[in-house]
């Protein structure tokens, strides 16, 4: 079952194509990272899904049902956190959540319990002041609470941790992991570590165009660096190994890091796996560690965006 499906989605602002022919299919139960540099079209896409802006072309289906701009039908099953959440400043967080719960149609008795639970989840259980006095981080936590309140089938989060400190970000990622057992999470960010921490699948958007879409393992294989790291005992040994590798046609971009580590890119990883130990052995050097480096999401992101 598909929680969210975007078909040929497009948004033009006069001559600018903010989102161009976007096809995405978000499987139910997944945590889907929507990655891209600033201005890539992430927020525009999310606002089209939520019905706040009108697509120039294309179709949006939420839990199999087509949804249209300006029409509230079909969007009851989503929970949405905008990039800069704003609330009525004169309300208290409990009041805002009670108001949200009434809009969602949660029965009164059940609502009180759910409000207490989500406030506990986002760390605002003790917050009693009016929302007007809240920091951006606290508003973001409340934004997550209102999006989670009705236990939505699809949770759409636009930069959910952008205003949070490292502990807050870790908390939010844990919340996302926890709710993913019952909710499909689709969240945009430009913080790569957040995506690496929790996502099953990733889409990278650049200039409104989808450049990469796959699961994390497949992406790591596709964007493999073919780079080995060899750790020896001393800087002198590292220098000798580096010199020896310079003469090999299959080796490139050789450098020494942290005095005792030699990094070398190889034409293919199999060549490295048997040629490097032989060179080390011929030199009579000890190998403390040798590993094939996996690409980080940052490497993938940079490669995908540049290509």
């Amino acid at each position: 079952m598909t929680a969210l499906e975007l078909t040929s989605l497009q948004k033009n602002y006069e001559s600018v194509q903010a989102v161009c022919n976007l096809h995405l299919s978000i499987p139910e139960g997944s945590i889907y990272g929507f990655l891209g540099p600033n201005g890539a079209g992430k927020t525009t896409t999310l606002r089209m899904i939520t019905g706040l802006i009108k697509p120039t072309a294309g179709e949006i289906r939420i839990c199999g049902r087509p949804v249209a701009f300006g029409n509230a039908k079909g969007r009851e099953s989503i929970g949405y956190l905008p990039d800069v959440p704003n609330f009525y400043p004169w309300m208290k967080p409990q009041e805002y959540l009670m108001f949200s719960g009434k809009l969602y149609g949660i029965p009164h008795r059940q609502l009180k319990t759910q409000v207490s639970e989500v406030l506990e989840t986002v760390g605002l259980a003790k917050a009693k002041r009016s929302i007007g006095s809240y920091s951006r981080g606290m508003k973001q936590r409340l934004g997550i609470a209102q999006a989670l309140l009705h236990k939505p089938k699809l949770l759409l989060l636009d930069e959910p941790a952008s205003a949070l400190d490292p502990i807050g970000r870790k908390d939010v990622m844990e919340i996302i992991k926890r709710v993913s057992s019952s909710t499909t999470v689709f969240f945009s960010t430009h913080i790569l570590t957040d995506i690496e921490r929790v996502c099953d699948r990733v889409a990278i958007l650049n200039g409104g165009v989808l450049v990469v879409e796959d699961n994390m393992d497949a992406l790591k294989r596709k964007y493999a660096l073919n780079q080995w790291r060899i750790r020896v005992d001393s800087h002198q040994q590292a220098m000798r190994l580096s010199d020896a590798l310079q003469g090999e046609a299959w080796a490139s971009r050789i450098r020494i890091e942290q005095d005792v580590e030699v990094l070398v890119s190889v034409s293919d990883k199999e060549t490295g796996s048997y040629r490097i130990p032989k060179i080390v052995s011929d030199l009579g050097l000890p190998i403390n560690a040798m590993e094939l480096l996996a690409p980080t999401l940052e490497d993938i992101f940079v490669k995908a965006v540049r290509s």
Partner: protein
Amino acid sequence: MRHLSALLEKEWMETLRDAKRLVLVAVFVFVGLLSPLMAKLTPELFSLIADSPGMSGIRMSIPEPDIFTYYEQFLKNMSQMILFAVMLAFMGSVSQEKAEGTASLVLTKGVSRIVFLTAKFLSVLTIISAAYWLSAILFLLYTSLLYGTSVIAGTWAALSLMWLYLLFVSALVLLASTFSRSIGMSALLAFGLVFFLMAVSALPVLRDWSPMSLSALPSRILQGLATFRQIIRPVITGILSIPVCLLLSSWSFSRQEL
């Protein structure tokens, strides 16, 4: 219905906590009490000025205030001072919610745009009605204390027409607020709309039907100068204008990207 009642409850809470709305109610109360006082004291103030040493030689003829003077004062204040107060209090009702993103969060909870606007219209019209009739009753009570009587022939018709005028202007303000993206723009549009309608109402062909003439009719009713035909036309257009403003607002809002 569930959405409408939740939104109305929220609007009611806002009325109790928002300084702008509380100030508006206070201004209504102030006008209700001040108008009879001004009607009574104005001739006395002028006679004091005339008697002052620097003003010797100048003759001022100020008639004693009658019951019509009291009503004139109240109706003039309503159609001028209160008109501006209503515009200032409600011009950001929709545009501010759009600009700040609070409307977006509500609309992504399955609320339709027409329900969102209906709640705004109902709450604003209710606040205006409650504040206006509180003000009118205070005016009548205070006038009867100062003058000895207050309810005369045509009182309720005149007060009702002024009420309808304020409801019509409030609907215009909400229409302007819905069409605008910022408070500044909605202020400009609301004032522009009111002045445009005032100018258009001066044209003989439209004058009889224009809801803007609802502000001038109460005085004529009290003096027995208005005919049924003169009254009914702007009443019909005034009453119809309110749902028309809501429908126009809804039409515009449903096409707006937030």
